[in-house]
C-alpha cells in the first residue's frame, strides 16, 4: 500500500510543484505594462517628473535580427562578420568616409569625403626615421606616420584613452603566446608594421622555405660524418616533398609529381620521414637533380636543387621597443613605422581614401579589463586565451553605443554610450537618433519575416519565396556587393579519370570546348531572375563594385579594357556596334546553338582520343557546403540547362547531374578533386582588382587548383610602361605576370600601384582576367545583389547605395515614429503591416 501511495504522491507533487512554479508567477503584474508582447521596447524608465506630471521622453529603438549570434567582438581575435556586428557600434575610427553634400544639402551620388574622427591630425614623418633603426628608405614617403588623437577620447566607464593604450593593445595583438587571429593584419596585408611579424614569430621553431629566403646553396651546407648535410650551425635541413614551396608557386613537390621524374620521386618518397622531408645527402641531391631534369619541368639545372629544401629555424626574441609603434612627443601622439609604404595622405596633405580603408583605426582594448580577462593555458597547451569582449561584464566601448545586455544565442542590446566624444562634436548634432539597438537571434527566416510584418523588427532581407510580391515595395532597397557567384569546373584530369567507373565518364570536363559549352548553355539573366531575389547576370571575374581607381570613383568593369574582355570571351564583335557599351549590352552569355556545336566537337575529340566511349554516360557531381532549398533550386536550374544543352548532340540523354553535400570541407574537397562542379566565388580586395586576381591565379586560393598558372604562359605587350613610355612585350607565366602587377619581390618588373598609374595597370588586369575566363574553369553566373525591406518606422538618409557610406548607417538613420507611436501604429493595423 505504501509504495502505491508514494508513487501517486510523488507524481502529484512533481506535477503540482512544476505547474505552480510557473503559474504562480503569472499572477504577478509586470510593472509598467500589461502586455505580453515581449518585443515591446517602449522604455518606461526614461520618464521625468514635471510639476507632478509624468512626461515620457520619446525613445527610438532600432530592432533588428541576426541568424547567428556573435561569440566575441574582441578586435584582436574576431574571425568573421558575425563578430563584427557588435564591434562596429562599440569602436571609433581615426579617419572615416562621409557623404559629400552639395550646397543644397543633397547627397552627391557615388562621391565621398574623408574626415578626421578620433584623430585630429595625420602627418607623414618618414623623413624623421631615415637612417635610424627603422630603416626607412631615403626620400621615401608613406613609411612613418604620426597620428594625433583627440584629447577627449574615453571608455564608456570614463577612463581616458591615450596613445599608450594603442601601443599596449598592439603589444597584446602581436603577443606570440596568444597567436591572435588578427595579428597578421599588421604584417601580411597592406599595413606592415616594422618587426610585427618577427615579434609574433619569436621563439617559434619551424622549417623555412629555402627558395623564399635564398639562404643556402649546397656549398654552404656542412656534411656530417654520417653523410647528412646540415646548416653551418648544425641545425637540420631537408628536401621537402609535402610542404608548400615558393619555388613551386605555393604548391608542394608532390602536387607536381606528374611533371617530375617518376623514378626519382618514388625513391625520394621512400626515403621521406613522416613529415614528408628527406635528409640532404649526396644521394638525395643526385635524386633531386634527376627529379627536376624533365621535359615537363623545363630541365631545371642542378644549381636549383636548394630551392627544394627547407631548413630548421628558431625565430629570435624581439623587444617590443623594436616594433614600429610607439608614443610620440606628447601622450596623444601615436607614431607608426611601416616596412611597406602606405599612401594615407595625398600629395596636398589631405587624407587619401586609404586612410579610412587601411587605417580606419588600430585595435584598442581597455587595459584593466583586458588583463582581467586573460586565461592561462592548461597543462599541455601553451596558448593563452581571453574572454575579453564576450559578455557585458568583459566589454568596453569607445564607440557611439555600449553593450547593455547579451544573451548568447538569443539577444543583445546596445544603448548610447554617453562618454563617446562624438556626441559633443558639433557636426554630429541631430544625428545618431537611435537610442537603443535590439538584435534578436532568429535562425529561421520565416520566423523573422513574421516579426517584421508584425512591426517587431525594422529591416529584413527579401527571400526569393516572397520576392515577386515585395520587390516592388516602396520600402524595398537593393544593395550590390563585390561577390560574383561562379560555377567552378574541376581542373584535375587525373582525379576526374580516377572517379570514372564502367560506363561513367567525367574526363570530358577536361576539354575546354565542353566547359565553354556548359557556360554558353546557361541563360544567366533567367537564372538570376528565377533563383535569386535580386541579383543580376554576371559575365566577368569582377563586377561594378571593384574599383581600380577609388579616388576617382573608377570601377574596373566600366573601363574599356574590361568591356573588351567580355566581348572577346562571349564572341561579341564590338567593332560592329556603335559604342563599346552597346556591344557589352548585347552580351547574354547564352548561345545554345553554339554550345551544342561545342559539345559535339568536344565529344568527337574525346572519342578519337579514347577519353570517352560511345556507351558512356557523362555523370557530373555538383557539390555544395549545404543543400537547402535555394541551393537545390540553383543546381536544378543548371542541371536542366545542361540536359537541354545535349539535346541533338551525341550526348543526348547521356548527361546526368547529381547533387552532393560536402559540408564545411566543400571548397577543400573540390580543390582536392573529390567532385566535379561547385558554385563559389570570392569577396574582398574590392578596391584592388590586381591583388584580387590572386583568387584565380594562386594555387593557395584557386578552385581550379590543378590548372598550373606557374606553367601557363602569356605573351603580352604592356603599352607605355617601358623607359620613355615605350611598350614592353614579354612572355611570362601567369604567376609571373601577376607578381609584376603587384610588385612582388623578385618579380621582373614592378608594375604595382605605387610604381605605375592605375590606367596603365588596367591593361594587365584585363589581360589576366581574359586568361582566366577563357579556360572556363571559372564560369561567372551572377553579380550578387541583396534585396531588403525597411520598416515604415525608420528611414535611411538615402536609398541610393554609396560604396563608402552604404545607406548612412545608424549615424544618419531617422525615425518616423518613436517607440510608443510605432506600437500604436502597428496596433492600428491589428499587428499585421502591409509592405506590398
Amino acid at each position, binding site marked *: 500500500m505504501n*509504495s502505491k501511495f508514494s*508513487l501517486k504522491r510523488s507524481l502529484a507533487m512533481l506535477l503540482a510543484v512544476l505547474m505552480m512554479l510557473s503559474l504562480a508567477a503569472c499572477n504577478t503584474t509586470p510593472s509598467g505594462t500589461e502586455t505580453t508582447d515581449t518585443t515591446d521596447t517602449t522604455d518606461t524608465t526614461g520618464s521625468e517628473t514635471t510639476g507632478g506630471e509624468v512626461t515620457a521622453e520619446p525613445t527610438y529603438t532600432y530592432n533588428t535580427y541576426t541568424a547567428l549570434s556573435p561569440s566575441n567582438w574582441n578586435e584582436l581575435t574576431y574571425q568573421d562578420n558575425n563578430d563584427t556586428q557588435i564591434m562596429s557600434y562599440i569602436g571609433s575610427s581615426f579617419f572615416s568616409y562621409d557623404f559629400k553634400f552639395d550646397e543644397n544639402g543633397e547627397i552627391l551620388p557615388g562621391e565621398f569625403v574623408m574626415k578626421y574622427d578620433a584623430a585630429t591630425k595625420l602627418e607623414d614623418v618618414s623623413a624623421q626615421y631615415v637612417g635610424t633603426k627603422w630603416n626607412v628608405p631615403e626620400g621615401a614617403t608613406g613609411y612613418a606616420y604620426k597620428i594625433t588623437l583627440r584629447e577627449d577620447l574615453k571608455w564608456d566607464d570614463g577612463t581616458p584613452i591615450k596613445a599608450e593604450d594603442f601601443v599596449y593593445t598592439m603589444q597584446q595583438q602581436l603577443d606570440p603566446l596568444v597567436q591572435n*587571429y588578427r595579428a597578421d593584419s599588421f604584417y601580411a596585408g597592406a599595413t606592415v608594421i616594422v618587426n610585427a611579424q618577427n615579434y609574433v614569430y619569436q621563439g617559434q621553431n619551424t622549417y623555412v622555405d629555402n627558395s623564399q629566403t635564398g639562404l643556402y646553396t649546397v656549398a654552404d651546407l656542412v656534411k656530417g660524418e654520417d653523410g647528412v648535410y646540415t646548416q653551418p650551425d648544425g641545425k637540420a635541413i631537408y628536401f621537402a616533398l609535402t610542404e608548400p614551396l615558393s619555388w613551386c608557386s605555393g604548391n608542394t613537390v608532390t602536387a607536381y609529381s606528374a611533371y617530375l621524374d617518376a623514378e626519382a620521386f618514388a625513391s625520394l618518397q621512400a626515403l621521406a620521414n613522416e613529415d614528408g622531408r628527406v635528409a640532404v645527402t649526396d644521394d638525395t641531391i643526385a635524386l633531386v637533380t634527376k627529379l627536376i631534369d624533365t621535359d615537363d619541368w623545363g630541365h631545371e639545372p642542378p644549381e636549383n636543387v636548394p630551392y627544394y629544401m627547407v631548413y630548421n629555424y628558431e625565430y629570435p626574441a624581439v623587444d617590443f621597443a623594436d616594433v614600429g609603434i610607439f608614443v610620440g612627443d606628447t601622450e596623444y601622439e601615436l607614431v607608426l613605422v611601416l616596412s611597406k609604404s602606405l599612401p594615407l595622405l595625398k600629395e596636398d596633405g589631405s587624407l587619401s581614401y586609404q586612410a579610412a580603408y587601411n587605417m580606419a583605426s588600430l585595435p584598442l582594448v581597455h587595459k584593466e579589463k583586458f588583463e582581467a580577462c586573460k586565461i592561462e593555458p592548461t597543462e599541455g*597547451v601553451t596558448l593563452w586565451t581571453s574572454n575579453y569582449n564576450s559578455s557585458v561584464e568583459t566589454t568596453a566601448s569607445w564607440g557611439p553605443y555600449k553593450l547593455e545586455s547579451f*544573451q548568447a*544565442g*538569443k539577444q543583445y542590446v546596445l544603448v548610447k554610450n554617453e562618454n563617446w566624444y562624438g556626441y559633443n562634436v558639433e557636426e554630429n548634432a541631430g544625428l545618431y537618433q537611435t537610442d537603443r539597438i535590439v538584435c534578436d*537571434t532568429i535562425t529561421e527566416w520565416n*520566423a523573422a519575416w513574421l*516579426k517584421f510584418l508584425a512591426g517587431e523588427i525594422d529591416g529584413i532581407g527579401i527571400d526569393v519565396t516572397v520576392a515577386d510580391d515585395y520587390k516592388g515595395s516602396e520600402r524595398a532597397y537593393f544593395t550590390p556587393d563585390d561577390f560574383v557567384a561562379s560555377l567552378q569546373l574541376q581542373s584535375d584530369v587525373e582525379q576526374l579519370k580516377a572517379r570514372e567507373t564502367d560506363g561513367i565518364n567525367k574526363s570530358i570536363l577536361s576539354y575546354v570546348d565542353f566547359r565553354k559549352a556548359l557556360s554558353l548553355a546557361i541563360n544567366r539573366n533567367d537564372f538570376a531572375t528565377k533563383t535569386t531575389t535580386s541579383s543580376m547576370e554576371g559575365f566577368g571575374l569582377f563586377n561594378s563594385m571593384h574599383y581600380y581607381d577609388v579616388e576617382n570613383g573608377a570601377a574596373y568593369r566600366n573601363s574599356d579594357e574590361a568591356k573588351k574582355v567580355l566581348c572577346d570571351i562571349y564572341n561579341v564583335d564590338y567593332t560592329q556596334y556603335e559604342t563599346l557599351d552597346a556591344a557589352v549590352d548585347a552580351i547574354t552569355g547564352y548561345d545554345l546553338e553554339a554550345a551544342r556545336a561545342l559539345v559535339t566537337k568536344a565529344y568527337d575529340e574525346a572519342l578519337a582520343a579514347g577519353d570517352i566511349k560511345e556507351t558512356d554516360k557523362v555523370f557530373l557531381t555538383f557539390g555544395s557546403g549545404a543543400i537547402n532549398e535555394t541551393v537545390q533550386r540553383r543546381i536544378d536550374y543548371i542541371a536542366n540547362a545542361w540536359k537541354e544543352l545535349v539535346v541533338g548532340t551525341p550526348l543526348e540523354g547521356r548527361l546526368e547531374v547529381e547533387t552532393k553535400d560536402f559540408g564545411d570541407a566543400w571548397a577543400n574537397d573540390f580543390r582536392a578533386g573529390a567532385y566535379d562542379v561547385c558554385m563559389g566565388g570570392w569577396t574582398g580586395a574590392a578596391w584592388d582588382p590586381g591583388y584580387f586576381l590572386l583568387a584565380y591565379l594562386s594555387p593557395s586560393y584557386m578552385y581550379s587548383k590543378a590548372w598550373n598558372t606557374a606553367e601557363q604562359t602569356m605573351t603580352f605587350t604592356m603599352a607605355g610602361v617601358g623607359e620613355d613610355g615605350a611598350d614592353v612585350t614579354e612572355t611570362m607565366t601567369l604567376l609571373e605576370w601577376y607578381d609584376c602587377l603587384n610588385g612582388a619581390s623578385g618579380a621582373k618588373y614592378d608594375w604595382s600601384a605605387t610604381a605605375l598609374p592605375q590606367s596603365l595597370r588596367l591593361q594587365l588586369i584585363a589581360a589576366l582576367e581574359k586568361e582566366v575566363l577563357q579556360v572556363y574553369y571559372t564560369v561567372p553566373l551572377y553579380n550578387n545583389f541583396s534585396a531588403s525591406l525597411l520598416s515604415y518606422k525608420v528611414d535611411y538618409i538615402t536609398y541610393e547605395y554609396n560604396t563608402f557610406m552604404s545607406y548612412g548607417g545608424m549615424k544618419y538613420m531617422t525615425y518616423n515614429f518613436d517607440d510608443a507611436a510605432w506600437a500604436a501604429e502597428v496596433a492600428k493595423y491589428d499587428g499585421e503591416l502591409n509592405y506590398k
Partner: protein
Amino acid sequence: MYMFKYICKRIGLMVVTFTIIFVTCFVLVKLLPVDYSVGFGEDTAKIEAQLRARGYDKPIMEQLVLYLKRIVLDGDFGIGFRMPEYRGRAVWDVFIEKLPPTILINIYSSLIAIPIGIALGIFAALKKNKWQDHFISTAVMVVISVPSFVYASLLLFIVCFKMDALPLNIASFADIIKMYPEKNLVYTPGTFNWALYFNKEMFLSMLPAVFSMCFGSIAGYARFTRAELTEVLTSEFMLLARTKGLTKSQATVRHALRNSMVPIFPSIVGEFVSVLSGSLVIEKIFSIPGVGGLYLASINAKDYDFFMMLSAFYLLVGLLAGLVIDLSYGVIDPRIRMGAK
C-alpha cells in the same frame, strides 16, 4: 541484497562501457584532419602555430591524458574553437546556459501530454470498437503522422501572428529583467537563475513551442495506452477481479491500469532522457536558445571540446536512464525483481 548486487554490477558495467565509448570517441575525432580555410592576406604559418600551441600536434593518447587531467583536476571541459557562435566560450558554461530552456519546454510539453495522452488512451480502450474509440484512434493516426515542425509553423502563423495570442518567439532575459525591475533580476552568463525562467512572460512565450511538441506526444501516449490497456482488459485476471466483486472502474484502475503501466512508464522515462538533446527544428522556429542541434553542430565543425563534453554527457545520461528504466519495472510491478534468480 540481490537488488544491491544487481545495481553495483550495472554501475560497474556502466563505468566500463562509458570509458570504452569515451576513449573511442576521443581517438576517432582526433584522427580526423584539422581543416581550415585561409582568406586573403591570412598567414597560414600563424594558424598552424596556433594549432600547435593548442597541443593538437601531440600524440593522441597524450592529448587524452591531458584532457582527462584537465577535467578531473580543474573541472575544465575546454573552450569552443570552431563553431562561430561559441568561439572562445567555455563549453560547460555554454551547455549549462542552453540546457534550461530545452528542459523546461520539454517538461511542460510532457506535463500536458502525459495526462491527456493516457486519459485519451484509457477512454479509447474502455470504449473499444465504439465510435469514440474510432474517433480517437483516427485522430491519433492523423496527429502522429504530422511532424512537429508542421504544428510549429501553423501555431507560429495562426496563433502567434494572425491571432496575436502568444509571442512570436521566446522572451529574452533582457525583456524579463526590464518587465520586473522591482525584482532586481540579474543575468550572469554561464549560470542558471531560475527567477528568469519562472515567470508569466517566459511561460507564455514558451507555450507555442510546448504545444508544438506535445501534440505528437499526446497521440503517442494515447495509442500506446490504448493498446496496452486493451490487452490487459481482456486478460483472465480481469475476469477474476470482476467475479470477486470489484466494480468495472475498480478493476480497471487497480488492476488493468497498473499492469498496463509496466511498459508505459519506461517510455515516459525514455522521453525525459531524449528531452535533454532538445529539438533542433522547434528551437530554430521559435528562436529558443537551447541545446537542440548543438551536438550535431559540434560534430560538423570538429569542435573537439564541445564534441567530447556533449558525448560524455549524453552517454552518461543514456546509461543512467537505462538503469533507471530497468529499476522502474520493479517499482511499478513488485513481481518483477531485477537480478533475482
